[in-house]
């Protein structure tokens, strides 16, 4: 606290003690200069103002300060302090209606509903006494919002509305109360209010319908019909009026009248499924079970489409119950079961439907249901047998058709094959497709493409290759060069050494030449425009297709030279043999050799830049052979490791095989060879390599667990479970905690 503030406070206290209130107030007001929103100071000034010698002005001033203080307390979150200040105001001036309302708001915010109601009621009464009806109504609304169940207040509000000539507001309020009464089952009170409404507004549709409903519920059907007709006359499309009449007619068994009106109602509100439900009830009452079942089916389907499976099930069952032979009901039930995942029901209903369709000659549908059952239960014998029966007959039928008419639509067979593929029945799919190309359409492209892909999937590469050739032959007269090119590439991939593809390969290269010419033109264009990067990029694309394209190589070299700014040769060719001198001397000796040369010295573009990876590797390998002698076992071993890490397993094996000759690395190299063969999936070779390692003299106890464990794994991978168990048992006998050997032994024992 600053000394200035302390002085003011001290002075204010002195004035207060001496009874010099006004002077004290002046001192306190000084403090407000710096902190005008200090609610405590404002409150104190309010208190002092009350004590001041001029009572009238004092009270007015006090209230003014209190209100400011309370407002600040409210906005600062000090509700209790604010309430205390408001109460002080009410002590000074008990007729301050606005303060009661503020108090009510605060109590309401704090959840003190009783206090809030009391405050609001006081305020409302005071407003009413003063004839300020609008304000009184606002407060009554607040009370009603506090406790919607306080119907007396609401009625009072409605009465005030009427008094004030606000008829619509009054009716709205009465309606709210009447509804509340209905919820509380106070039917008489509700009816009285509706009748009251009709007194003020005789054509009030809602009140007429509601009274009609109450009459109907009480069993006064004729009266209900009267109210219904009255309502219908007022609004012929009112769903409430129509519903009242329909229900009244049903109750008096006037089903035809009810049906007519209900049909109208459904036309007006087709989404209201409850109306359809009523229609079904009427149809049942009239003995039209089939009609009713169809209506239930529509409702069930609607619910199914809206994913309300529970309700869909109810209506599908209702439909089936009153019309057991209604097939769509069974189909809908099957769909609902499938979506709910009720396996037993799916199988039961699926078999029912499949048999039904089979018996009625609808084989495709029967087949569809058998397949759906198999999707749920792949081992279902009944479905499998049914499917085979259907498929067999289908083939026979098709044969007959082919025989009789010489032509057949194979789209069904293609679709069947697709279904088989979808469910993993690849052999069946192949048979179906083979049937198409053998019996119906030998050149059916879709069938051949599917067959090709199936053969590839089933590992029948020769057949896949044959299909590629067949497709090429089919595409040739159709002038489909792109497709043919793709097929040639696929055929090469499937069977690269088959001589039959040679002719096509040559054609591919010729075709590529056409593309090259286009690309070359593009590259030349860029070159002429000085767009060197773009030109190089296009030439590189050419090289990606034809790595020996001379023009591309030549032009790239030329363009690179034009563009090149860094051409410093970095190192000299490394000599194959190490220098015999010590490393420091060697460094000194090579000092000049590794010296950087000046910048901007042009370097020629190398031809190797555009070689394929295989060519680079070949060249690299030649360099290695020139640099390393076969006796350099350690370097070959290191190279083996390098290749292995690069995923070049075959190349790694070659290096390890060289290093294996050197006794120090015999064991390690054998082990690495085994790991490489394992990566290549050649487990038998891998086993052989490890057995070699075990037989070596370097094989020691220290290493044998690692090697034996690996050997056991390889036996397992090679499917030699007994050998695996034998080896793992040896490892286990030595150290049962070694890796997961105990688990492996256990699993193998169980398996064997």
């Amino acid at each position, binding site marked *: 606290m600053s000394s200035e503030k302390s002085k003011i406070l001290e002075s204010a206290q002195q004035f207060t003690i001496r009874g010099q209130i006004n002077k004290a107030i002046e001192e306190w007001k000084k403090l407000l200069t710096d902190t005008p929103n200090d609610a405590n100071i404002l409150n104190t000034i309010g208190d002092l103002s009350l004590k001041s010698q001029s009572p009238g002005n004092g009270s007015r001033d006090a209230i003014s300060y209190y209100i400011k203080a309370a407002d600040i307390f409210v906005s600062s979150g000090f509700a209790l302090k604010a309430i205390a200040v408001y109460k002080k105001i009410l002590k000074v001036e008990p007729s301050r209606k606005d303060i009661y309302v503020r108090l009510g708001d605060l109590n309401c915010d704090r959840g003190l509903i009783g206090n809030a109601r009391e405050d609001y009621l006081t305020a409302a009464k005071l407003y009413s006494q003063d004839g300020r009806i609008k304000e009184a109504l606002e407060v009554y609304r607040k009370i009603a919002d506090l406790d919607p169940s306080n119907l007396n207040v609401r009625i009072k509000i409605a009465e005030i509305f009427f008094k004030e000539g606000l008829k619509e507001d009054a009716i709205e309020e009465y309606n709210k109360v009447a509804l509340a009464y209905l919820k509380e089952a106070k039917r008489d009170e509700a009816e009285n209010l509706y009748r009251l409404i009709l007194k003020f507004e005789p054509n009030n549709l809602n009140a007429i319908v509601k009274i009609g409903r109450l009459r109907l519920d009480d069993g006064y059907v004729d009266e209900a019909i009267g109210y219904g007709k009255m309502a219908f006359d007022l609004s012929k499309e009112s769903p409430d009026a129509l519903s009242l009449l329909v229900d009244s007619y049903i109750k008096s068994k006037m089903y035809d009248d009810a049906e007519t009106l209900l049909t109208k109602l459904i036309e007006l509100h087709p989404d209201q499924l409850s109306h359809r439900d009523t229609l079904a009830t009427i149809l049942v009452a009239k003995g039209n079970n089939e009609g009713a079942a169809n209506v239930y089916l529509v409702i069930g389907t609607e619910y199914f489409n809206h994913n309300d499976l529970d309700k869909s099930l109810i209506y599908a069952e209702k439909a089936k119950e009153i019309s057991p032979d209604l097939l769509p009901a069974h189909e809908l039930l099957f769909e609902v079961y499938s979506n709910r995942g009720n396996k037993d029901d799916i199988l039961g209903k699926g078999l029912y439907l499949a048999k039904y369709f089979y018996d009625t000659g609808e084989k495709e549908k029967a087949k569809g249901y058998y397949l759906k059952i198999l999707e749920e239960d792949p081992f279902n014998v009944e479905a499998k047998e049914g499917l085979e029966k259907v498929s067999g007959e289908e083939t026979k039928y098709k044969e007959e058709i082919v025989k009789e008419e010489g032509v057949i639509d194979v789209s069904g067979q293609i679709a069947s094959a697709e279904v088989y593929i979808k469910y993993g029945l690849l052999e069946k799919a192949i048979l179906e497709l083979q049937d198409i190309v053998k019996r119906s359409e030998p050149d059916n492209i879709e069938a051949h493409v599917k067959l090709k892909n199936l053969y590839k999937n089933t590992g029948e590469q020769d057949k896949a290759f044959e299909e590629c050739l067949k497709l090429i032959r089919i595409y040739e007269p159709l002038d489909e060069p792109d497709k043919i090119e793709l097929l040639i590439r696929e055929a090469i991939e499937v069977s690269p050494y088959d001589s039959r593809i040679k002719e096509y390969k040559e054609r591919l290269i010729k075709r590529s030449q056409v593309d090259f010419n286009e690309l070359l033109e593009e590259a030349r264009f860029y070159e002429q425009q000085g767009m060197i990067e773009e030109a190089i990029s296009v030439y590189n694309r050419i090289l990606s297709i034809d790595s020996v394209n001379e023009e591309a190589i030549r032009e790239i070299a030329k363009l690179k030279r034009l563009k090149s700014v860094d*051409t410093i040769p970095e*190192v*000299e060719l490394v000599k194959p043999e190490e220098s015999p001198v010590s490393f420091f001397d060697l460094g000194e000796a090579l000092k000049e050799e590794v010296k950087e040369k000046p910048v901007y010295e042009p370097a020629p*573009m190398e031809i190797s830049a555009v070689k394929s990876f295989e060519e680079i590797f070949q060249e690299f390998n030649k360099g290695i052979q020139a640099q390393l002698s076969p006796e350099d076992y350690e370097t070959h071993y*290191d190279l083996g*490791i390098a290749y292995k890490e690069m995923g070049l397993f075959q190349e790694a094996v070659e290096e390890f095989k060289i290093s294996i000759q050197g006794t120090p690395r015999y064991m390690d190299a054998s082990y690495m060879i085994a790991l490489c063969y394992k990566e290549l999936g050649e487990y038998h070779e891998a086993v052989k390599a490890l057995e070699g390692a075990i037989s070596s003299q370097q094989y020691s106890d220290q290493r044998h667990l690692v090697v034996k464990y690996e050997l056991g794994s390889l036996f397992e991978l090679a499917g030699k479970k007994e050998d695996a168990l034998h080896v793992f048992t040896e490892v286990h006998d030595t150290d049962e905690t070694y890796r997961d050997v105990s688990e492996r032994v256990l699993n193998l024992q169980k398996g064997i």
Partner: protein
Amino acid sequence: MSFIHYSSREINCKIVYYGPGLCGKTTNIRYIYNNTNPESKGKLVSIATETEHTLFFDFLPIFLGTLNGFKLKFHLYTVPGQIFYEASRKLILKGVDGIVFVADSQVERMDANMESMDNLRRNLTDQDIDINYTPLALQYNKRDLPNIMPIPEMNGLLNTREVSQYESIASKGEGVFETLKDVTRQVISELKKAVQLG
């Protein structure tokens, strides 16, 4: 990832020298080879083309002692810098443990440096390796040449991760071992974190 050979009790770690063509990667490896005790190094495998570019890769194994009873062996590789050796670079990066990115400090080589850095990032991503979490050291080589770019600018262009960077004149050995030590230290730290040895 480091290859732990339990049978021979060896750990092989892979350091790759990456960077644009002719930035000095092979010079680094050669300097390391020439200045390392013969007992601690294997043979340098380096095949150069007629125009002095690296063919496929340079390769130098060096031994750094033992770690928890395992012989610690570092395999140093360089990649061919020229853009058309993409396949080789991808292969060499397989299983990488640490990277030394050698940048050419000459102003006119900045595009090539950035292109190579981008290429490194992409090739690592292809292997599901995040460059931001891989041991990495930057070497700004050829600092003795005229028209070189100041270090802050080079950092701004290449060193977004703010790793250690070393100025070097690889032909004279300046900065060569410092860079290698840095990346080796990072790799060993990662190795210790990743593997419980013994």
